[in-house]
């Protein structure tokens, strides 16, 4: 008898002390029902306090299977705009324990998500006819604008990978999937709260666990203010309608991005709610790739805009000075033709103003050959690497790693290794890589990098990481390797471009703009049209880069767009005598109008 008692006590010991934790977990899983209280997501507004993204109520239909009695399913479906097949499918999904692990006929299950306010109202009225069904509200993103889809990003249901990476999330939660929504997910989402209930063996809720001792109150997400100027953003998208390309405008002093336009664009509201997956599929399959943020993720040859950077770097390296002259034979020049007609020899300022190819080829060659080639090309390659390092210090050839712009491409400034591979260790010289002199060849930049170059020149040698949100994380000045003193000449040259050069036609009468156009050949059709610049000349408030694909000269398309954008930003309106420019741009369509707008 004592033996039996002993054996039983041992078993009790094993159950209660040794394996206590295991059984405790099981018992908690059994009986504790954790009801999550979702916090409201933070709002997003622009630099002037205009609300861009906020929340609206949406409604889910929940169903408790045990309480459902035969109902008029046709009426039900019509009320919430779904088909009978969809309803049947949803019921089947809910009951499938493989797909819906937490299924119990005694607790409410999500049947249909994200009803519109109208549908909700209709169903609410008829709810008494459908026992077992109930409505639960939660929030959805709402946009005050149809612009900014690319950088705002969207929120979507978490994937299994997201759940594995961050235990905060559980199945059915929503999180930022791209853009600002993704980068500032932790700020915007707030903290979920939880209310713990006791659940009996049938899954019915019985009471509040320990009177709420272990409950957590939900913490609302924080609001976010962007550096974006909504007026400018919307205006930019209006100008870019029917075109392919990107615009980035930056405030040089702060690095705040004022506008970031990628065309073709789409209405951010398309990726919200029940239609999200359908619309997403449509956008993905669109041949004009509206989902691609061309402002940060498309790489273009910088073309002649690169000459400003070339002039800066080559001065710093001692290849030229502001009083260097080179001859130009116009179209007969060798090895690179000049595309404009102007006098010869050409000066430093004149070369920038006239975008003289031979001048910059000579500048490039003189700089790279200043120490000669050396044995086995070693000296030349060393000089090339120095040149490359100078260029990289302008933010070219790499991402802005600490920026809150989520989707960026690196661009490209070719490495020594690359040329060694293509031409052999000793097989390449200045003449071999002459395309780099005028921003063609292997060089690639994104509109964001290009706009940042404008900001650097405006700041005479430094930039602040371009960023979207106004937070305390940004503000450190990042200096390029080119001294401030070399910038004056370039700024002067860029001013001449818009004052007396190719851009004189569309200049804003009382705002001196500095800029440089670019026209780059490409394999997809007509030339890309580029412009990079800043304004006003002496107290720069906006640096801007515009790239329009396959449309023609930089001075014909990109420049007037930049001009209008600058005017809009600085004056908040377009002068009546310039309205014709706006009209010309808006009416120009280079692609089939693939711009997607929700009804």
């Amino acid at each position, binding site marked *: *008898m*004592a033996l*039996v*008692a002993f*054996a*039983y*006590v041992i*078993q*009790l*010991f094993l*159950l*209660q*002390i040794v*394996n*206590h934790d*295991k*059984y*405790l977990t*099981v*018992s*908690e899983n*059994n*009986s*504790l029902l954790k009801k999550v209280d979702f916090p409201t997501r933070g709002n997003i507004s622009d630099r002037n306090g205009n609300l861009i993204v906020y929340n609206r109520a949406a409604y889910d239909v929940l169903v408790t299977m045990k309480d459902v009695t035969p109902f008029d399913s046709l009426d039900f479906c019509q009320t919430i705009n779904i088909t009978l097949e969809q309803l049947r499918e949803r019921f089947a999904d809910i009951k499938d324990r493989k797909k819906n692990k937490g299924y119990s006929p005694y607790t409410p299950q999500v049947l249909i998500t994200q009803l519109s306010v109208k549908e909700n109202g209709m169903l609410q009225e008829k709810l008494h006819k459908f026992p077992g069904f109930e409505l639960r509200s939660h929030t959805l993103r709402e946009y005050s604008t149809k612009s900014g889809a690319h950088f705002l990003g969207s929120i979507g249901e978490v994937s299994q990978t997201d759940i594995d990476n961050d235990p905060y999330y559980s199945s059915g939660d929503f999180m930022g999937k791209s853009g600002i929504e993704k980068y500032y997910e932790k700020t915007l989402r707030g903290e979920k709260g939880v209310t713990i209930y*006791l*659940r*009996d*063996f049938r899954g019915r809720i*019985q*009471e509040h666990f*320990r009177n709420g001792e272990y409950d957590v109150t939900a913490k609302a997400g924080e609001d976010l203010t962007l550096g974006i100027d909504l007026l400018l953003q919307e205006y930019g998208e209006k100008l870019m309608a029917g075109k392919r390309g990107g615009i980035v405008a930056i405030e040089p002093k702060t690095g705040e991005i004022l506008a970031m336009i990628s065309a073709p664009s789409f209405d951010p509201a398309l990726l919200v709610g029940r239609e999200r997956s359908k619309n997403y599929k449509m956008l993905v399959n669109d041949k004009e790739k509206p989902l691609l943020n061309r402002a940060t993720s498309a790489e273009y040859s910088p073309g002649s805009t690169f000459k400003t950077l070339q002039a800066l770097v080559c001065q710093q390296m001692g290849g030229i000075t502001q009083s260097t002259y080179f001859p130009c034979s116009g179209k007969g020049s060798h090895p690179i033709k000049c595309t404009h007609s102007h006098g010869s020899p050409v000066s430093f300022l004149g070369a920038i103003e006239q975008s003289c190819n031979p001048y910059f080829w000579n500048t490039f060659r003189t700089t790279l050959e200043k120490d000669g080639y050396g044995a086995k090309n070693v000296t030349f390659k060393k000089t090339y690497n120095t040149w490359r390092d100078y260029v990289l210090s302008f933010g070219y050839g790499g991402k802005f790693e600490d920026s809150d712009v989520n989707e960026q491409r690196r661009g490209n400034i070719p490495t020594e290794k690359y040329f060694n591979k293509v031409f052999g260790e000793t097989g390449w010289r200045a003449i071999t890589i002459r395309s780099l002199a005028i921003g063609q060849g292997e060089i690639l930049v994104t509109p964001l990098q290009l706009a940042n170059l404008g900001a650097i020149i405006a700041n005479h040698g430094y930039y602040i990481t371009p960023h979207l949100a106004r937070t305390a994380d940004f503000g450190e000045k990042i200096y390029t390797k080119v001294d401030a003193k070399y910038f004056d000449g370039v700024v002067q040259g860029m001013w001449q471009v818009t004052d007396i050069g190719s851009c004189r036609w569309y200049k804003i009468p009382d705002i001196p703009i500095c800029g440089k156009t670019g026209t780059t050949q490409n394999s997809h059709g007509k030339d890309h049209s580029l412009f990079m610049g800043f304004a006003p000349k002496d107290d720069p408030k906006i640096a801007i880069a515009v790239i329009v694909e396959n449309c023609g000269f930089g001075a014909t398309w990109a420049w007037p767009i930049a001009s209008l954008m600058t005017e809009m930003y600085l004056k908040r309106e377009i002068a009546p005598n310039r309205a014709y420019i706006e009209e010309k741009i808006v009416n120009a369509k280079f692609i089939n109008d693939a711009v997607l707008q929700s009804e």
Partner: protein
Amino acid sequence: MLYYNLSETRKSADWIAILLYALLVLMGEVSIIGACGNVSSFTDIFSFSQFYGKQLVWIGCASAIAFAMLKIDAKIFLVFSYFIYACAVALLVVTIAVATEIKGSRSWLVLGPVSLQPAEFAKFATALALARYMSRYDFNILKLKHFSMVCFILFLPVVCILLQNETGSALVYSIFILVFYREGLPDFFLFLFCWVIFLFILILRNASVSFDSGEQLGNVLAYGAIIVAEVVMTMLKEPNKRMWRIMFLCEFVVMFLVWVFNQFEWYHINYEYALMFLIGAGALFHLGCFLLYMAKRKIHLLISGILIFSVAYSFSVNHIFTEILQPHQQMRIKVTLGIEDDPYGAGYNVNQSKIAIGSGGFFGKGFLNGTQTKLRYVPEQHTDFIFCTVCEEFGFLGALSVVLLYLALIYRILYLAEHQKTEFSRIYGYCVACIFFFHLLINIGMVIGLMPVIGIPLPFFSYGGSSLWSFTILLFIFLCLDKNNK
């Protein structure tokens, strides 16, 4: 002087046992509150719509019964023992005829608002009858007539209860073998009892495992165990020590040869047949010895008999299991033996019960905080599975206390029984202790997952008037007998 004489003839009741009884009953009530009450809904202990409220009524009645029992003249129990027994059996028979089926058994007698379970009351009646019969001055359990009579007394209620489909309650009567053992039944029967259970478990536990050549592991092990038992018995009982050594050697050599043949695939010999051949040969050999010694060594006849009985029994174990036991009983046994795992079907109760017990930990979740029991994850939590409420809410400490209290009560009864002057009181005392012991063995064993699920209550803890009253009567008849001992 009269007063003095009266007090001398009346010894006071055994307060230790009464105190233990009271403690257990009170703890039972607390557990029922814990199993059924919610923090919010538990407002009034006297709410008679709840189990704990009703149990309070049963406890009140039980106290009255206990008090009455102590007041009754002890001789009445002796005199009326057969009469009480007859009444109980009659009641059982009536129940079979009258009772409607509740949860698969026909054991409830409904008298207006009160339901009684006569099977509970048959326990003390049988105990009284047994004590009366076995206390005859010429009683010898080894006499066939007496032994049959004892078996008959047990047989009547057991059959009735089985007919009521209350297998659990019927099994309680098997524990009287311990009483018989105390009253002179030889060790042999106790060993036989254990041997039968051992073979049963051994065969079933390994029945699903087979060799490539088709032998069942369960059978092979059982036959092996029979041969080992044969050798051990010979070694212990046969004066000629050479005999068991030679036997052992022969059997070992035969089995080794069989193994070698099979191993090198010269010729396949079925292990089951080889072992059965050895057992058969052994049976013949011992029969031969018995005849050779001119029946002087009866032990050989016995060994021979055991061998034949064991083999026959082994043959029929699977049959008994699949044909005589009901499917749900088979499943419960399989789950306990770990042959099958069925946490949502047959194993649900025990699985949830183990979760409740395990989650209690050392100190428990606290009174009324047991989620497993209160939210009814454990079925029958206020009756058969009441012990897991104790474990969940009061932890290892609470469970240990309860086990120790029961142990103390049983030892106290045994102690008192040994000090009785009359054989009637002593035998009755042993019956009481054994009945308590069996209930604890099965009930707690079941709740902690060491025994198959057999629906019998935990004395004094489980909710229910019939069970509480019958255990109270059972105990207090003995305390009354004890009081009049001197």
